[in-house]
């Protein structure tokens, strides 16, 4: 037990921080309860998918600047396809949009592998391309979403045999998030491909000399990033009922949560749980700042300061651990 905690010190620390933040929130607003927790998870949803998309690529030693544009494009595509159509039709739209994200992500990877242009340049270019494409699909916010899709993120999950007071704390949005991430991430991490992802992130050359198919793995990393991005886009359409072609603030938020989540920007280290917990921390900080009615012009400064402090503290403790 102690050993597992030690191995996952960063994530454990983040979870402790999150719990403490919940305590602080409860102190600020004694009425903070289940309904508010449900609201929090709904706010977390698009950010969580954005950060998942970023995490996969960063672990593999890259960076994906097109995350937010990918979400915008997949969101408007879904919203346009679902506008004025039947509820059943959405059953086709969802896999199509996920495939679209996967394909466009793979395209990112192929461009990087074939052209040998650095990741940051290629994905910067695709950022603009996808943004333009999103505006072509829908030049102003609009479209629609199936009712059952919207209902997927509203309210708690009703569990039989459990008192309402307990299952009120299990939001549908959280369940959706856990399922979507687990279905992709757990089998991946346990497979040879998962190991390859970490290997090329640690050292591309060493991985290549050990017989890891570097190009294929990299393309897959970007394709998965696209897939998570598409999930994020769908979650935006689900929570707003529309598609918006102008990308939201998800790119920088995803990088921030990756760093806060203990994933090394150089690649090869970290997991998915840390960044996801980090998203919760960042959103809850935003909630607390609103609850406290802090001057809105100061909130972003506070958010930034908290992030720097946590990351510096973590690095400092890690250094001391190594020395002792």
């Amino acid at each position, binding site marked *: 037990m102690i050993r597992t905690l030690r191995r996952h010190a960063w994530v*454990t620390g983040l979870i402790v*921080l999150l719990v403490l933040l919940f305590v602080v929130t409860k102190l600020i607003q004694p009425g903070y309860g289940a309904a508010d927790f449900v609201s929090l998870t709904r706010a977390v949803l698009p950010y969580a998918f954005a950060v998942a998309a970023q995490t996969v690529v960063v672990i593999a030693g890259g960076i994906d600047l097109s995350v937010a544009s990918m979400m915008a494009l997949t969101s408007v595509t879904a919203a346009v396809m679902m506008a004025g159509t039947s509820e059943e039709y959405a059953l086709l739209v969802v896999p199509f949009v996920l495939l679209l994200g996967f394909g466009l992500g793979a395209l990112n990877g192929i461009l990087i592998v074939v052209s040998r242009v650095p990741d940051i340049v290629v994905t910067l270019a695709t950022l603009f391309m996808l943004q333009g494409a999103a505006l072509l699909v829908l030049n102003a916010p609009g479209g629609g979403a199936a009712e059952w899709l919207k209902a997927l993120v509203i309210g708690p999950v009703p569990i039989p045999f459990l008192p309402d007071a307990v299952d009120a704390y299990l939001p549908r949005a959280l369940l959706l998030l856990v399922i979507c991430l687990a279905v992709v991430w757990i089998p991946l991490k346990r497979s040879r491909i998962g190991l390859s992802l970490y290997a090329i992130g640690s050292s591309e050359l060493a991985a290549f000399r050990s017989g890891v198919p570097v190009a294929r793995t990299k393309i897959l990393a970007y394709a998965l990033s696209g897939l998570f991005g598409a999930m994020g886009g769908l979650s935006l359409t689900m*929570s707003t009922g529309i598609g918006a072609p102008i990308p*939201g*603030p998800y790119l920088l938020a995803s990088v921030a949560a990756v760093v806060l989540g203990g994933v090394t920007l150089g690649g090869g280290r970290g997991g998915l749980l840390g960044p996801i917990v980090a998203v919760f921390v960042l959103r809850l900080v935003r909630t607390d700042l*609103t609850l406290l*009615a802090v*001057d809105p012009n100061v909130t972003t400064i506070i958010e930034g300061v908290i992030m720097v402090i*946590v990351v510096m503290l973590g690095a400092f403790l890690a250094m*001391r651990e190594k020395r002792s």
Partner: protein
Amino acid sequence: MTRTMRATRIGLLAGAALVLSAAGALAQGTYTIGISNTVQGNGWREEMICAMKAQALASGKVAKLNIAHRNTDAAGQSEDIRNLISAGVNAIVVNPADPSGINAALKEATDKGIVVIAVDQAVTEPSAYIISNNQEEYAYLGAKWLFQQMGGKGDVVYMRGAAGASADSDRDKGFKKALAEFPDVKVAQEVFTGWQQDQGKQQILDFIATGTPFNGIWTSGIDNVIVDALVESGATMVPVVGADNAGFVGQLNNVQGFTGAAVTNPGSIGAAGVKLAVDILDGKKPEQKVVLVEPQLWENATEEGKAKLKAAADPSLSPEWPVSIMIPGWTDYTKEQIVACKGPGE
């Protein structure tokens, strides 16, 4: 591990204590009003926020304003609205990022008995009240005057607001209505300024550089930089229609050989939203759920218009602030209060 815990705990508690003490004591009044706005760093929106603060203070009935004011999308605004619900506010005044994208969050608020008022732009959620400037009339009034100035023919540059904003689509209706009345007027160029000064100026400079002739410019409120661009590039002065921003009104009064018109679009509509919220909380519900404030047009082509402009000009205001800082019947504060931009308890 324990070290991490201890250190983060101490840091966190210290931070929380600091923030709590900074929140400070509260002033008179009993209501808490939440405000949600999604465009930061825009003169019009800043005036709206200041008007809301001033009105809350002047009403004497608001204990605290809880302002969520940042650049974000509909999903982010829904998050802000839900946070305001968690904060236990009595009313929420919102300038919506999208007419339907935040409906779910607004519905959650009204279900909890919170009074929701959309200002400036409409929302489709039926449980919300709407108090807005009449945007269709705003565009129609200005465009019609412009086309008359152009002699009913020629090419007009159509500089819109932000794509998808409901104020922009309503204004587009008004503009198209005026256009239909003048069949010989053609749109030479249509762009979205995003209501950003720098972007609008760049766009008009790019257009002037193409050498395409034009006879008039209609702007959606990004106006004084357009006149600046015309003056700086030495282009022929054509009539320009803008909003009643202090800088533009000053130009209408002072720039030689320049004809134009300002259509009022008071940012103080935010204060009207706060007043309506307080009235409803006091039990005074309005007869209709939608209240529209009608715009006025001030032009410098006639003596009568010039007199109006002279009276309206206020060089002491920030050039991006609309000069109509008050709306008769809807605002109770003084000019000092809105310029000071302080809410209750600040």
